[in-house]
C-alpha cells in the first residue's frame, strides 16, 4: 500500500504539489473503488443523479476539503495509508446518504474553509433516510444469519424454530419436547441471542428482527421441517 503523505502534506500546508493531476486521478480511482466495494450500484447512481456527471470531481473536491478540516491530526502522521483515505471516502458517501444530499458540494468555497475556523453546531439525529438504513440493515441481517447458524446448537435451533412458527405464522409445529422444557429452553435461548446480536427479541427492535427471523425461518427452519417430514 502506498503512502500518500508526499501528496497530502504539501496540500495541507498550501504548497504546490508535484503531480497534482496524478494525485487527483488516484483519488478518483479510490472513489470509484469505494462505491463498488462498500455500496450497491444504486448508490453511485444516486450520486450521479444529485451531483450530475461531475460527481467524481465534486467528491474529489469534498475529499480535499475534508482533509483540510482534519489537518491538525494529519500533519502529525508518519504515514498516510490508502486504506485510511478509502475510509474517508466511504464516510463522505455516508454523509450525503445520511442527510439525503442536503449539502451541496458547491456550497462552501475553499477560501471560506481555509480562512478562519468555522465552529459548527450539530445535532444528533437518529433516523437515516430509509435507503441508507436499508443498506446497513441488509449487511446486519446477512451477518446475523451466519452467526446464528454457526453459534446455535441443534437443540437450540429446534426451540428457535418452534417459537418462530408460533409467533410469525401462528402455527404449532410438532415437537417431542414437553412444553415446560420448551419454555425453559426458550427463556435461556432468548438471553443467548440477545447477548450474541445485541438486540432484544421482546424489545423495541422487533420490527427489524422480524425481517431477519422471517428469512431465518425460510432458510433454516423450513429445511429442518422438510428433513423431518422426509424421515
Amino acid at each position, binding site marked *: 500500500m502506498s503512502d500518500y503523505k508526499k501528496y497530502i502534506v504539501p496540500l495541507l500546508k498550501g504548497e504546490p504539489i508535484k503531480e497534482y493531476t496524478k494525485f487527483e486521478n488516484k483519488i478518483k480511482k479510490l472513489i470509484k473503488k469505494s462505491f*463498488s*466495494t*462498500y455500496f*450497491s450500484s444504486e448508490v453511485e447512481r444516486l450520486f450521479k443523479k444529485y451531483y450530475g456527471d461531475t460527481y467524481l470531481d465534486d467528491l474529489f473536491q*469534498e475529499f480535499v*476539503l*475534508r482533509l483540510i*478540516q*482534519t489537518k*491538525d*491530526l494529519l500533519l*502529525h*502522521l*508518519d*504515514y498516510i*495509508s490508502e*486504506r*485510511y483515505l478509502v*475510509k*474517508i471516502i*466511504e464516510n*463522505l458517501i*455516508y*454523509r450525503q446518504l*445520511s*442527510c439525503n444530499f442536503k*449539502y451541496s458540494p458547491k456550497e*462552501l468555497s475553499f477560501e471560506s*474553509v481555509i480562512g478562519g475556523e*468555522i*465552529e*459548527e*453546531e*450539530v*445535532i*444528533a*439525529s*437518529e*433516523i*437515516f433516510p430509509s435507503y441508507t*438504513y436499508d443498506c*446497513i440493515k*441488509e*449487511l*446486519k441481517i*446477512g*451477518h*446475523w*444469519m*451466519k*452467526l446464528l447458524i454457526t*453459534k446455535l446448537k441443534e437443540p437450540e435451533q429446534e426451540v428457535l424454530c418452534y417459537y418462530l412458527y408460533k409467533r410469525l405464522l401462528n402455527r404449532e409445529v410438532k415437537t417431542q419436547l414437553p412444553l415446560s422444557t420448551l419454555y425453559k429452553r426458550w427463556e435461556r435461548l432468548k438471553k443467548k441471542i*440477545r*447477548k*450474541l*446480536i*445485541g*438486540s432484544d427479541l421482546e424489545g*423495541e*427492535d422487533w420490527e427489524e428482527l422480524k425481517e431477519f427471523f422471517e428469512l431465518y425461518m425460510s432458510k433454516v427452519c423450513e429445511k429442518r421441517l422438510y428433513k423431518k417430514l422426509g424421515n
Partner: protein
Amino acid sequence: MKRDSTKNWVIEMLNPGDLLKKSYLEFRRMLLKEQGPFSLGAGSEPKEGEIRIFGIYPPIYLLITEQLKRLPEIFKVIPLSEEIKLCYLNKRTPIFVFKTLRMCLCALPLELYAERGLLYTYSKRIAKTQKPSLNKCQKYVINTIIPEATYQGRFIKLQEERLLKLGLTLHQDHLLKEEVIYLDDTVKMWIAEEYSYRLTSSSRWVVKGKDFYGIVELKPEYGVLTLYISENLKGREVDIRLKNIVLYQGKLQSTKLVFKNFPKLSDYSFLEEDLSVQIRKL
C-alpha cells in the same frame, strides 16, 4: 485475475455479512500502524457539549457529555466514530452529520471518564452540540447492549480498549487516585547529569512511549512529570526504569503517577526512548 475479483464482488453482494467482517478486519489492520497520541495545537479547555478530535490515528472523536460538578477536573465522554456501518447498531443509534467538516459520526454505546489534562492536551474542539443531543446519546448508551459476537460488537470493544489504553476509564474512582512520588536525590542527580547535554531546539513536554505517556510541567526549580500508565497494567507489580535506574517499583494502585521533583531540563524527549514500564516477574 480480473475475473476473480469480479467473482469476489458478486459473492460479497450476495453474502453481505462479509462486508462487515471485511471492514472490521481492515480496521484491525489499520490499528497495526496506530500512531499517537499527539498534542493538537496549543491545547484548549474542554467544555460540556463539545465534539473533539483526539490526536490519535486512526482517529477517535469524543463528545463531552458532562463535567462532574463535584469533581470539575473530570469529564464524561461518549466516543464517536467515522466507521458508520460498524457502529450503526439500531434505529436509535445517534448520528451527527457535519456540513463544514464534511463527515458524519456515529455514537458508540459507551460512556467513559476522562481527565481535563488529557482532553486539554490531546484533543481539539471541532464542533459543538446542545443538551437535547447529549441526552439522546446518553439514553442510547444506557439502553444499548453491546453485541458480543458480531463484528459490530467486536469493533466497539476494540475502540473501548484503545481508549482505556489512553488513560480514559470506565469508573470515575480510577481517575481520582494519583500516586505522588519523590525521587531519591541520587537518582535525581543522575538524571540531571545524564541528560544535561540535550539541546533545546526540539524541546518536548509531551512524550509517548510503550504503555505510557507523560506530560512535564516546569516549575521555577524543578519539573513535575505526570505519567499515565496503560489501564491494563493497573494492579500489576511493575518496575519503571530510566535506562537501568529504577524510578518506581511496586504494585500499580493508580495509573497516574506524579513525580514531583523531576530535574529541570531543557528537553524531555529522551523519556520516549529510555523510560520503560515493565511487569515484574515474580
